[in-house]
């Protein structure tokens, strides 16, 4: 190990949250649990008990009954399970939903309507109501609790009241919100919410659908009838155990959000002071404390990200799933920004290991990039 090799600064928590040490311990221990949870012998019963304990922990994160937690392979499967399995008459989704919700809706054979968002990324309630008024009874509304790119928080309780008024079910993709803001399935009035383990410090490859006690769900994967018949396949025991541990830690870690909000707000204040034309997306809305999505107009997001990578800082442009392909963020254009502005943004997302020094280092690197760009800008005139 070279002493001169610097550990990169990881500011991409919304793409994946570094697994927590206690989770690694729990997962490693669970890997040694031999049985199949469906087997009735002692090895199987041990595996079953590990799964059920984790189910109670995940349920506690969102104030649900353990039996209403259905484990699956991740947030994408969870969203697909709800959108395709809720047996809705039509789908109404917000314009800034995660790709998996958009794609699952389009693949569902149901009519899909998109509710617009305003400039800060918050859904336009009046437009949503118009769509609900026209929709047949039994529609499924899908609005994410907090956005992965901008951190914008949606008024879920208000949306739930509307949905109820028009006899619609409400699903909220709470993948980014869980562990960052309180998510209570009952208090929010949700029929479904979906979670991903690796976004809250658990292992990748596991997620959950949480249902209200009366919400219908037709299984998408059939077979041995695991997960109360809602999702067949041998349970990912170690992954589920890790998810449970992460849920406990995430719940406790909410106290850390004030610290992250301070770090984020100070970063944004410095950015604004230095560069008045920088665009901070969703700044006027309720936002997750850890997320800052900022554009330097005229400088491509990919160029910025490369610059940060050379400086040893991991951030992303757009959401990770679409990072492989260079495409304009539908979230930012959905908020009314031009494709040029949208594609000149980077997303910085902080988390439990982030220190003040790291955020300062990001700002210094950002400033250097900005100054170089504006220098070039001046010389062109």
């Amino acid at each position, binding site marked *: 190990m070279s002493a001169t090799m610097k550990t990169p600064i990881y500011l991409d928590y919304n*793409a994946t949250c570094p697994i927590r040490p206690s989770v690694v311990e729990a997962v490693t221990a669970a*890997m040694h649990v031999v049985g199949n949870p469906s087997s009735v012998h002692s090895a199987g019963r041990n595996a079953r008990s590990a799964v059920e304990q984790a189910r109670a922990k995940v349920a506690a994160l969102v104030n649900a009954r353990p039996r209403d937690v259905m484990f699956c392979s991740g947030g994408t499967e969870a969203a697909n399970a709800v959108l395709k399995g809720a047996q809705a008459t039509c789908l109404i989704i917000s314009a800034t939903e995660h790709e998996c919700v958009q794609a699952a809706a389009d693949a569902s054979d149901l009519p899909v309507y998109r509710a617009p968002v305003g400039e800060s990324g918050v859904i336009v309630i009046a437009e949503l109501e118009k769509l609900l008024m026209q929709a047949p009874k039994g529609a499924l509304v899908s609005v994410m609790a907090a956005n992965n790119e901008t951190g914008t928080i949606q008024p879920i309780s208000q949306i739930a009241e509307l949905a109820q008024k028009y006899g619609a079910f409400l699903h909220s993709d709470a993948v980014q919100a869980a562990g960052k803001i309180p998510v209570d399935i009952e208090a929010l009035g949700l029929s479904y919410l979906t979670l991903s383990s690796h976004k809250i410090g658990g292992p990748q490859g596991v997620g959950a659908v949480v249902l209200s006690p009366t919400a219908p769900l037709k299984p998408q994967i059939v077979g041995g009838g695991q997960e109360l018949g809602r999702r*067949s396949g041998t349970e990912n025991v170690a992954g589920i155990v890790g998810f449970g541990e992460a849920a406990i830690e995430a719940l406790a870690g909410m106290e850390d959000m004030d610290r992250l909000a301070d770090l984020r707000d100070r970063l944004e204040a410095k950015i604004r002071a230095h560069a008045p034309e920088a665009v901070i997306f969703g700044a006027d809305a309720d936002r997750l404390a850890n997320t800052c999505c900022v554009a330097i107009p005229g400088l491509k997001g990919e160029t910025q990200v490369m610059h940060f990578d050379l400086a040893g800082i991991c951030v992303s442009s757009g959401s990770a799933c679409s990072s492989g392909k260079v495409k304009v963020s539908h979230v930012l254009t959905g908020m009314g920004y031009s494709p040029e502005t949208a594609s000149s943004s980077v997303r910085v997302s902080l988390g439990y290991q982030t220190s003040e020094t790291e955020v300062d280092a990001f700002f210094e690197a950002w400033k250097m990039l900005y100054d170089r760009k504006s220098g070039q800008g001046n010389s062109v005139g």
Partner: protein
Amino acid sequence: MTANQGRVTVLVKTPIYLDYQATTPMDDRVLAAMMPYLTTIYGNPHSSTHAFGWQAEAALDIAREQVAAVIGAEPQEIVFTSGATETNNMVIKGVMSAWGKKKPKLVTVATEHKCVLEAAMFCRQQGYELEILPVSSDGLLDLNRLREAIDERTALVSVMAVNNEIGVIQSLAEIGKLVREKDAFFHTDAAQAFGKIPLDVEGMNIDFMSISGHKAYGPKGVGALYKNSKRQTTLMPLFSGGGQEAGLRSGTQAPALVAGLGSAAAIAEAELTMEAGRISGLMSKLKTSIFSALPNLVMNGSITERWQGNLNLCFPGIDGDLLLANIRDLAVSSGAACASAVSGPSYVLEAIGRSEVDAKSSLRIGIGRFTTADEIDYVAESLIAVVASLGGLKP
């Protein structure tokens, strides 16, 4: 009180795990291969903008090569999933919805895993034609029946490689040849076969294969699909989203799980012949001991065409539940794990013509990589003693 309490026997740690068809213990080498991705390399493999993402992505590439090598496939023909149940659902529903308009018929076998049969039933509810073929009393598919069942309207034929309950190996090469001649697609659920018996997608004319991690000493929660790239094997994905895995399977891949599957595959490939030989030796030792003491025991499934890590036995005249209750130190099962909670006779045993009584008198014993010769001795002694204490077998 167990029946063999107080007997002098070899010292082994109990309970002895004998349920390798339900799930295999994870190999420590697999866990070692996974650890870096659980600790330091925690990137999202789809984050293409920084080193954490690249390292995680590299894990997927390596594993793809490792899995492909076991079955003679190309790395790009491997799609990672959450397990064999997902893969089986994906192939059966996905092929039928992509091809069903032109070719509405699906052919499968009565002894398939529950998830294949359930997915097939789902297709029938969707309006597709389903033919479920019977098997002979040895559990093997009659190729003439298969030939008659496949016609020009048949899109997919799904036949499992190794049966999870009775361990019989279907003649994949002959089935593959037949299916290819009729221009249908051949899918095999190889959850129990992958890494245990030689599989060659080219030589066996396999178009789709389902692979499971935890049945091959890898982690639970990961599996794979092999999809023949030389044929037009279009299928509708189960999940939509970020378009990962060439658009076939959206969702953030789990590098640790995938690296575990890759490592399990690499170990299996290197040790397959040696391990099969060792397991076969242990199994014949077990069979010799128990059959000489209990000549009325009946084996379920073909005696020759079988994976030697499986033994499904009928104890005529003894109730299976009572038997199980008296051998608490042996972790065996009365059938498929998924059906464990549901009592009622096994549909697989029913399909090979066992009566309900005989099916209820049957046990599945699964051995594998970590089974020792001492354990085999203990198991044989236990079974013989318990049968005696329960009044012996009926002729």
